[in-house]
C-alpha cells in the first residue's frame, strides 16, 4: 500500500492502555486485556456488537503456549461470531491490516488490540527465536547483545557516544513522568553494563501490558470522536535479515516507509518512536530527519514502557491521543520489529484545522 487513502478517510477515534507493570501474574492474558477493551469501547459509546472488524497482535512465544490469542478473544465477546484476524506481530501491524480493511469499504469501524505478558519467561532469550534459524539463532544472541552491536557501530561512526545515549534515556524517562501508564519514569540510573556499550538505563523495562484503539471511517469517525486523528498514510518496510548485510547506523527501511506514508511532505510536530534501546532513537531521528522543533516521545516511549507486541501500537495510540486532546496537529508514529530495527512501520496522523 502507499499513502494514498483512496476515497475513504480512516481515523483513530479512541485509545486505551493498561498501566504497564513488571509482572501481572495474578491475571491471565484475557483478564489483563479486558479492562482495556472496555475502556476503549466506552470512549466511543460503542458495544462489541457495533464493531465491524477486530484485529489483534500478540506472540505465542511470550506465553509459551500455542494459539494463545484465541483465549484472549473471550474478552472481545466473540460469540455470536465476529469478523476477526490476528497477526503474530506488534499490534501496529494489526492496525495496518484493519486500516486496509476499512479502506476497502468492507468495514466502517475496527477494534485493534495488542498485548504482551513478558513476565512468565525471559524476554531476552525468547526474542532469539525470531532470528535466522540457520546461522544466528543457534548462537542465542539476545536482544540486548544485538542492540549493543548497533550502539558500537554508531559510536565508531561518530554518531553518538555513551553520554549522548544516557541523555536519550534521561529525556524519555523525564517525559514519562507525566504518563500515568509508564513503568519507568523520572530519573533512572544508567546502571552497570548489560552488554557493553549498553547499560541497564539504555534498555527498556521488561513488563506486561496491553493497548487498544478504535478506527473508524469518514462520518462514522466524526460521530465517534470530537477530533479524530486521521491516518494520512501508513507504510511498512523490511530489510535484509542478515545483520552483516545491513548498515546498522542507518535505517533505510524507516526512511522509505516514512516517505511512502507522506511523512516528509510537511513537517510533523510530534513523533512517537518505537525505540526500545537508546541507540535506536539516534538512528530513527536521523532516518526521519527529526530536528529539535519536533516533540519526540512525549509519552516516554519504549524506554519507559515496552510491553512486547503492544509497544508499537502504543506509539500510534499515544500520537493519536495527542491529536484528540488538541496537543498535536500532525504527528508521526513509528513501530519496529525484529533485531536492530529490522522492520519498520510509519504512520502519519493529522487532526482537522482548529
Amino acid at each position, binding site marked *: 500500500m502507499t499513502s494514498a487513502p483512496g476515497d475513504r478517510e480512516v481515523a483513530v477515534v479512541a485509545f486505551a492502555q493498561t498501566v504497564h507493570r513488571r509482572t501481572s501474574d495474578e491475571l491471565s492474558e484475557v483478564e489483563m486485556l479486558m479492562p482495556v477493551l472496555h475502556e476503549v469501547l466506552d470512549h466511543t459509546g460503542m458495544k462489541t456488537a457495533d464493531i465491524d472488524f477486530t484485529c489483534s497482535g500478540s506472540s505465542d512465544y511470550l506465553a509459551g503456549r500455542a494459539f494463545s490469542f484465541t483465549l484472549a478473544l*473471550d474478552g472481545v465477546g466473540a460469540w455470536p461470531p465476529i469478523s476477526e484476524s490476528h497477526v503474530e506481530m506488534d499490534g501496529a501491524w494489526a492496525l495496518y491490516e484493519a486500516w486496509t480493511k476499512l479502506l476497502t469499504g468492507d468495514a466502517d469501524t475496527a477494534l485493534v488490540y495488542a498485548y504482551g505478558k513478558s513476565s512468565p519467561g525471559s524476554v531476552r532469550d525468547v526474542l532469539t527465536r525470531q532470528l535466522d534459524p540457520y546461522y544466528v539463532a543457534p548462537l542465542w544472541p539476545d536482544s540486548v547483545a544485538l542492540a549493543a552491536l548497533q550502539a558500537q557501530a554508531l559510536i565508531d561512526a561518530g554518531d553518538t557516544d555513551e553520554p549522548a545515549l544516557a541523555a536519550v534515556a534521561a529525556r524519555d524517562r523525564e517525559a514519562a513522568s507525566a504518563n500515568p501508564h509508564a513503568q519507568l519514569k523520572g530519573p533512572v540510573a544508567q546502571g552497570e553494563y548489560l552488554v557493553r556499550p549498553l547499560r541497564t538505563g539504555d534498555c527498556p523495562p521488561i513488563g506486561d501490558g496491553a493497548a487498544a484503539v478504535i478506527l473508524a471511517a469518514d462520518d462514522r469517525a466524526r460521530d465517534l470522536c470530537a477530533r479524530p486523528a486521521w491516518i494520512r498514510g501508513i507504510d511498512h518496510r523490511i530489510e535484509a535479515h542478515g545483520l552483516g548485510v545491513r548498515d546498522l547506523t542507518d535505517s533505510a527501511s524507516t526512511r522509505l516507509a516514512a516517505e511512502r506514508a507522506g511523512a516528509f511532505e510537511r513537517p510533523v510536530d510530534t513523533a512517537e518512536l518505537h525505540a526500545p534501546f537508546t541507540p535506536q532513537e539516534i538512528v530513527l531521528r536521523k532516518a526521519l530527519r527529526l530536528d529539535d522543533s519536533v516533540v519526540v516521545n512525549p509519552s516516554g516511549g519504549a524506554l519507559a514502557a515496552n510491553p512486547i507486541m503492544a509497544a508499537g501500537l502504543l506509539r500510534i495510540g499515544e500520537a493519536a491521543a495527542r491529536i484528540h486532546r488538541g496537543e498535536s496537529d500532525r504527528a508521526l508514529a513509528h513501530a519496529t520489529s525484529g533485531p536492530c530495527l529490522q522492520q519498520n512501520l510509519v504512520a502519519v496522523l493529522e487532526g482537522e484545522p482548529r
Partner: protein
Amino acid sequence: MPEVLKAPLVVEFPFTRSLGPVQSAFLTGLRERVVLGVRTGDGRTLVPPVEYDPDTAEEIRDLVEVAPTGTVTTWAWNHAPRRGQPLTTPFAWALVRLDGADTALLHALDAPGPHAVHTGMRVRIRWAAERTGAITDIACFEPYDGDRTEPAGHTGEFADPVTGIVAAARLDYTYSPGRAQTAYINALSGRRTVGERCPACRKVYVPPRGACPTCGVATSEQVEVGPRGTVTTFCIVNIKAKNLDIEVPYVYAHIALDGADLALHGRIGGIPYDEVRMGLRVEPVWTDGARYPDHYRPTGEPDADYDTYKELL
C-alpha cells in the same frame, strides 16, 4: 484473594530444517574447515551466504571460498554469557568480515576483556573440535595478528554434503493461570468443580477463564457444578497415543456437568465403548493423589432428555 498458582513450564522443540544448495554447501564447508560465500550479480561476496540476492531477489549460487581470517566491523562485550551462547566465559559478540567477503558474519570473539577488542581488529576462526555441519562448527573467533591466508579456491562440491540441521530450542517459563483458573484448580484439589457465572447472561462457564466469551465481560461469581453430568457428544478413539497408558478403543466425550452452561472434556470408562450414547448420565472417578478426575463412569440413572442438553452441544 488466595495466592495465584505458579509452576515451571519448559518448552523444548527440536526443529528439523532442510538446507537449500547454498546453505548446505556453507554448513558442509564448516564441517571441513572451509568457509564459502556466494557471489551476487554485481560481484559482491556474501558471507554467510544466502540463496537470493538481498537487493535484487535474484537467485544466486556462485560459491566462492573466503579466508578463515577477517576484520571486526562492530562488537559488544558480553560479560555474563547466557545459556546456549557459544562461550561460557566472558566474550565479545562480533560482526566479522572475513577476508574476501563484503558482508559480516555474527559470532563470538574470545578475548581477555573489552580492552582487548576494537573495531578493525584482526581475528581468525577457531574451529570446534567436533564438527557436524552447523554454525557452531565455528567455536568462536580469536585475535590474530598473522598474515592473511589465501583460500584454496574450493568449489563448494562435497562428497557427503549436509542436507539438514536440527535446531534445538528450549525456553523456560513460570506459568501462572491467572485468578479464575487458579480458583478452578484449587477447587479440584478438594474434588470440587467450580465455574464462574457471567453477570450479564447468567451462564456458568467451566473451566472459567475470567471472561464471558459471549458478553466480553469479566466473570467473578463462583458456582459449584456437578459432580454428575450428561454426555452431550462423544467420539471413539482407535489410535493409541504415544506415552498414553489407555487401551484403545476408548471414548472421549463432552460432558455437561449439572449446573454448567458449557461442556468440558473427559474420558468415559466403566462401560463398553460401543454402549456410550448421548444423554448418558455420568460421574467422575478419582484416583488417589490425582489432581483431576481420571475418567467419568455411568451413574445408572435414566438417560437425560435431549431437550435438557441440546443447547450445550
